């Protein structure tokens, strides 16, 4: 009920356009594992065995009389020295995750599925026994039941026995295979045990409760390899992903989002189809820090605008004031000079020239010129203040001396004549430029008019013309692009041609065929010859400029078309660019929604889509991940049909294909295996596939069940190694039993 109540909420979220986000958590330390306080119940009881499911994913420890293991923790140990305190810490299991120091120092006891680091193993055992509360002197005083991998190498078992018997003085040890214990717990007698766990997948046929070891097979694929596979895929899918991705996060991604496809090829083919991608695409949000852009209220914005206007006005006022002052100054100056001129008329020539000299003028002409200039500038600024746009009329200067012959001039006159000549040339040049500009303006106006006319009269023709122009430009740009990519390939024709041209230019004797008798080098006679240098340049700046020009031209054309062509819309613009709606790569990377790289949240998202079925699929097709082995279906059929000669037994085995181990917990695993096996086994084979009640814990439970029922019985004696036997027969010694490995 609670579930249905929450469903509408998620529905509305999806209709609003936001997709459900899945978050990853920082690897966290959950606190200390509780210590058992009830050891008094078990003290001194030799019928209470300590059962340890020694797996590479988790170590599970408990009493054989318990229903479930008491301790579950990863088989890791972190031993590191704190320099400040000068002491060494030993942290086992989850405790190793307590902080980043201890996390980086953590070591795993396992190499794939075999114990390789016995220092870690010893710490794990210490930790387990401490947590069980064992306080016996001189040995733990309880039999030990330990799971091991299929065909555990002798060296590993030997070292383990040495450790348990000599360091912990165990009275007896029973070794067994985890998956067979699980099968035993689930009441299996004859069948095929398919155990797919953290580091490997094992297939062991069982006949009359005894594992047929000669047919046992291992596929080197399990959960840890799947996590590694996903890690590689994601690293390639999102190179330069901004957040750090931790191993536990990847593990949780595999566990939570991956499932086994029923029809892999069919499902995969349609996986990235846009319409329904939202249902399959899982968005994983990684933690990120939002770069906060200050959001201003309407009021604030208005205030800011007002302030800006105000300051602009003030500036304008200031400028006007300054202009006014300048104008005043100029007017004063003008009045003074005019006064000077007036005064000069009444004064003697000598006095007048002295007065002029005092004010820095050489003669009256200069003064008059100055007055004229001042008048002009005053008029101009007045007009500006009043807002009158006055077309400045350059008065045609007169060059009177030019018409006078040199003979009639003195030296000074000749100088002035030369100056006037220059002035005249300048003036004429200016005039010419102005005329040209006018002409150009007129031409453009006419052109625009003509086009306007053409557009109004013959819209269709205009449109088709513009469209073809646009297409031509696009094609040209594309060609350029293609050439560029071709040049990046050393073996392409374009590259070869370029190298040829370079070699030809560099050689002293051009091999060009020359006509007889015409032996001179004519390079450069034709201007096009120089184009060769442009062609061989690796990075062509000119071309890049041209590209840019073409781009702007294209933009202009598109703007025109947008304005006037009724059929030309934003969409037809996008059709040319990559539209994410049609992009498979976009679907793969960013799901069924547009992606905004500026959005920090979206930049820190990963989309799991094809990976959800691609990762677990490897167990059916190991080649996908570079494992050169047959998949589980092929192994099973090969084993059952070709290697099992007894057809009666074979049929019995069909009836009970038993799945255990964490990998079999992927949704759809059992179903898929059933259909796959049905299709390859003989017609109407009585096939039955089932999964363990608890694929993860049943190995421990089976080991506990077996030891609880058999301890003290002959069966126990026939399977477990006692301390006396160890002392007598050596550390290599094992006893073969139904659920254990065989001597090798």
């Amino acid at each position: 009920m609670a579930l249905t109540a929450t469903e509408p909420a998620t529905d509305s979220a999806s209709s609003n356009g936001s997709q459900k986000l899945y978050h990853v958590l920082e690897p966290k330390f959950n606190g200390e594992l509780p210590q058992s306080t009830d050891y008094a119940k078990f003290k001194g009881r030799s019928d209470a065995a300590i059962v340890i499911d020694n797996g590479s994913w988790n170590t599970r420890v408990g009493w054989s009389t318990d229903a479930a293991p008491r301790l579950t923790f990863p088989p890791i140990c972190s031993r590191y020295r704190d320099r400040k305190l000068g002491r060494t810490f030993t942290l086992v299991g989850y405790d190793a995750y307590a902080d980043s120091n201890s996390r980086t120092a953590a070591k795993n006891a396992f190499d794939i599925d075999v114990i390789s680091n016995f220092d870690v193993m010893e710490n794990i055992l210490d930790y387990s026994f401490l947590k069980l509360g064992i306080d016996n002197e001189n040995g733990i005083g309880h039999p030990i039941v330990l799971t091991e991998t299929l065909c555990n190498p002798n060296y590993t078992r030997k070292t383990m026995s040495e450790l348990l018997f000599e360091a912990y003085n165990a009275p007896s040890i029973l070794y067994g295979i985890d998956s067979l214990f699980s099968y035993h717990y689930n009441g299996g007698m004859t069948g095929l045990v398919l155990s797919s766990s953290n580091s490997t997948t094992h297939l062991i046929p069982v006949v009359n409760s005894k594992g047929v070891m000669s047919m046992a097979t291992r596929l080197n694929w399990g959960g840890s390899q799947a996590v590694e596979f996903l890690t590689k895929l994601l690293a390639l899918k999102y190179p330069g992903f901004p957040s750090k991705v931790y191993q536990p996060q990847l593990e949780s991604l595999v566990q939570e989002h991956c499932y086994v496809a029923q029809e892999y090829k069919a499902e995969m083919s349609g996986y990235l189809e846009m319409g329904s991608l939202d249902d399959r695409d899982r968005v994983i949000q990684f933690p990120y820090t939002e770069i906060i852009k200050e959001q201003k209220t309407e009021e604030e914005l208005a205030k800011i605008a007002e302030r800006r206007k105000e300051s602009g006005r003030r500036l304008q006022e200031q400028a006007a004031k300054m202009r006014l002052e300048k104008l005043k100054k100029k007017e004063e100056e003008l009045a003074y000079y005019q006064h000077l001129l007036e005064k000069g008329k009444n004064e003697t020539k000598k006095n007048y020239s002295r007065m002029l000299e005092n004010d820095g003028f050489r003669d009256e002409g200069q003064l008059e010129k100055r007055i004229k200039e001042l008048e002009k500038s005053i008029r101009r600024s007045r007009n500006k203040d009043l807002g009158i746009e006055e077309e400045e009329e350059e008065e045609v200067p007169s060059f009177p001396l030019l018409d006078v012959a040199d003979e009639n001039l003195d030296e000074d006159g000749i100088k002035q004549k030369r100056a006037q000549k220059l002035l005249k040339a300048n003036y004429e040049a200016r005039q010419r430029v102005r005329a040209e500009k006018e002409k150009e303006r007129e031409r453009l106006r006419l052109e625009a008019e003509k086009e306007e006319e053409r557009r109004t009269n013959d819209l269709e023709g205009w449109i088709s013309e513009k469209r073809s122009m646009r297409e031509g430009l696009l094609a040209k740009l594309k060609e350029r692009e293609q050439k560029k990519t071709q040049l990046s390939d050393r073996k392409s024709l374009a590259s070869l041609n370029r190298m040829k041209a370079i070699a030809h230019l560099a050689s002293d004797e051009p091999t060009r065929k020359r006509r007889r008798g015409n032996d001179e080098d004519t390079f450069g006679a034709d201007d096009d010859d120089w184009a060769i240098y442009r062609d061989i340049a690796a990075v062509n700046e000119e071309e890049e400029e041209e590209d840019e020009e073409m781009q702007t031209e294209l933009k202009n054309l598109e703007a025109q078309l947008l304005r006037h062509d009724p059929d030309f819309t934003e969409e037809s613009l996008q059709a040319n660019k990559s539209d994410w709606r049609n992009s498979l790569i976009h679907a793969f990377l960013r799901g069924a929604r547009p992606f905004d790289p500026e959005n920090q949240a979206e930049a820190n998202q990963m989309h799991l889509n094809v990976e959800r079925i691609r990762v677990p699929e490897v167990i059916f097709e190991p080649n996908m991940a570079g494992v050169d082995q047959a998949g589980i279906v092929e192994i099973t059929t090969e084993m059952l049909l070709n290697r099992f000669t007894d057809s009666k037994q074979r049929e019995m085995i069909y009836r009970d294909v038993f799945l255990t181990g964490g990998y079999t917990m992927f949704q759809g695993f059992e179903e898929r295996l059933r259909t796959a096996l049905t299709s390859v086994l003989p017609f109407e084979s009585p096939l039955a596939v089932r999964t363990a009640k608890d694929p993860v814990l049943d190995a421990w439970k089976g080991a506990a069940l077996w030891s609880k029922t058999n301890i003290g019985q002959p069966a126990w004696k026939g399977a477990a190694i006692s301390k006396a036997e160890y002392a007598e027969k050596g550390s290599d010694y094992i006893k073969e039993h139904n659920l254990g490995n065989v001597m090798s």
Partner: protein
Amino acid sequence: MAPSSTPTVLHETLDITNLEKPFKSATWKPAARRNKNLKQVLTEVNRAQAASIIASQAHTEANTGDNTPIPESALAGLSARATAAQQASALQKLSLSVGQPAPTYGNIDAAPSLHPANSGHWCDLTGLPASYVDPKTKLRYTNKEVYAVIRGLGQGVSDQYLAVRGANVILK
């Protein structure tokens, strides 16, 4: 308490270095160099097996002539010196005489697939069914859009893609 010292305090409560372990033998000393990775363990297993077979053959087939007899005095140090060829021939003989060797960690590996139909061709980038192979990078791809991406891949990235399915060429 200063926040920086909290982890240490936590570690002190979690630490098992100095805890009393009465159940543990006081005289126990682990053997030197007991930690071996899987590869080391397996090579040793192979060597020991081959040595024992050669030794047994030296007893029974000393005069068959297809194998140079090994003096018994040399057998003690044989495990270290047995050549790869000797080991191989010994293992071969074993499988011929016994029919099926006992299962060991090394020989229970599943065989490569015999059905080429079982391994499909999948796009190296997107995982979709792929019908094409880029002759330059040898990457499989599903359509021209993916191909465009492949052409734009940086140096060495295509090798990383190939490495995912173990198809990259490793130069030694």
